[in-house]
């Protein structure tokens, strides 16, 4: 055939590009091996392990109290929720019922963490698509949450505030006041996010119809959190398997059916509103009581297997503990949301442009220590 020979003569050549480990858009030390034809992505192959610390192996030698602080270092943006996951798993195994006060405080702090994480994501998302100012607006608001954490927990990022059996210490007397201040402040700033970025025509064109993920693929790829919910997959662990005080509050699960980058973006923006509503429902009625149930100094879990799911800012975090009855877990596996979400990057990026890859990777909201553990 005449045409086929022409096509063969003008066959374009594919080439490889190393995106990362040091690249502004990979948010850490993720390395992507891209196969590119011109600007079009043909294949994405992630290469991991640049900051792998083998937390799972470290957990096998640590006591259950000590494991908690390691989880801070996995998904450092939702460190408090990670702590909560391990504590819940241990408490369930020991069949401890924590006081209501602990449950409520844990939920408030988890939702604050979620807002902080989504807030940072929003700023970085803007940076990834080229709107540099969003970063600073996001940090202005996030700083208030960090101050709340610092006052109550003693640290801004790696809080280690939960312990098996409750909390390490009671909330600071200023906590309620500061959270209310923050909520009032943030409610005026969140609409500004929409005017600045969400409604922007360039931003919409960049996000809509990009990085398409169908509901079936989302489930098959194990997508969770905003990534799954952007594809119409109702996967909020807070709704399906409520933990802590989440069964006492009413909130809507943010759900979009478009499955594109913009849907994932909208889910996260709506989740910030939902988190505000959860906090508002709880902040005025923190029950009085103990902040901790006394546990043995050496916690020994009964023999068996325990699994605990929580919803971090990125999705479903699973803690799978195999115990042989000693003071250390025999095997501890973290099912991290980022790892499953990363596995679908190739699926949504192929066929797009380099700019699309950056934009859809930003909406996956990857935190590399979460993937590398």
């Amino acid at each position: 055939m005449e045409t086929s020979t022409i096509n063969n003569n003008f066959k374009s050549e594919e080439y490889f590009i190393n995106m990362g480990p040091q690249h502004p858009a990979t948010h850490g030390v993720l390395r992507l091996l891209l196969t590119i034809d011109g600007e079009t992505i043909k294949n994405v192959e992630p290469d991991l392990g640049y900051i792998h610390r083998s937390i799972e192996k470290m957990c096998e030698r640590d006591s259950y109290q000590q494991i908690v602080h390691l989880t801070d270092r996995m998904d450092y943006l939702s460190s408090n929720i990670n702590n909560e996951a391990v504590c819940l798993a241990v408490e369930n195994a020991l069949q401890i019922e924590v006081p209501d006060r602990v449950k409520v405080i844990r939920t408030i702090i988890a939702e604050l963490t979620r807002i902080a994480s989504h807030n940072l994501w929003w700023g970085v998302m803007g940076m990834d698509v080229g709107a540099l100012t969003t970063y600073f607006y996001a940090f202005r608001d996030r700083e208030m949450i960090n101050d709340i954490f610092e006052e109550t927990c003693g640290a801004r990022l790696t809080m280690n505030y939960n312990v098996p059996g409750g909390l390490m210490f009671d909330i600071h007397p200023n906590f309620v006041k500061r959270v209310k201040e923050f909520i009032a402040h943030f409610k005026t700033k969140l609409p500004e996010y929409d005017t600045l970025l969400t409604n922007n025509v360039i931003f919409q064109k960049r996000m809509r119809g990009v990085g398409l993920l169908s509901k079936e693929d989302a489930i098959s790829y194990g997508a969770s959190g905003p990534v799954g919910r952007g594809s119409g997959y109702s996967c909020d662990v807070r709704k399906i398997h409520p933990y802590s005080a989440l069964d006492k509050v009413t909130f809507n699960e943010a759900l979009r059916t478009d499955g594109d980058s913009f849907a994932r973006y909208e889910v996260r923006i709506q989740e910030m509103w939902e988190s505000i509503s959860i906090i508002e429902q709880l902040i005025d009625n923190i029950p009085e009581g103990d902040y901790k149930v006394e546990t043995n100094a050496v916690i020994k879990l009964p023999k068996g297997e325990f699994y605990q799911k929580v919803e971090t800012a990125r999705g479903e975090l699973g803690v799978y503990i195999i115990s042989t009855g000693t003071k250390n877990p025999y095997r501890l596996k973290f099912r991290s949301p980022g790892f499953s979400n990363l596995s679908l990057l190739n699926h949504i990026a192929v066929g797009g442009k380099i700019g699309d890859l950056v934009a859809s990777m930003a909406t996956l909201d990857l935190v590399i220590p979460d993937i590398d553990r």
Partner: protein
Amino acid sequence: MTNEALQNLISTWVPDFISSKLEFTEEESQFLNITVQPADLHKLLARLKSNSKTNFDYLFCLSGVDWGVELGVVYHLESTTHNHMIVVKVKTEDRDAPVFDSVHDIWKTAEFHECEAFDFFGVQFNNHPNLRRLFLTEDWDGFPLRKDYVDDINMIVK
């Protein structure tokens, strides 16, 4: 579906679809545990997904486990329509070349999780499209999460 109903349903699959015996247990776990022979692993898992009554379409956790003598893989499955969960375990005593069937054609996420299990436990997966060391370097010696792994320099034993 309750654990009991699940157990009753799945036990009817033997021996029509699955040749070897399945072991069910609910002890020491909040889920129903099924232990399956390696040869029947893929058949069982495929059926767990495709059967409309079970419909386990969400593989939320795939972990390699070293039980000391045996090496194995644990699959945590959930159904997004029925909201029930199940755990499938597969074990082998062959520590030098443990091989199971890959399930990446059933759940796409398994491709990455199997790489992880291979990387840390040395578990091989048949028919896996791209089984490579995902985290560690290609020339890494040994499989770190196995219980018999020794590294005098980097591991601090308390």
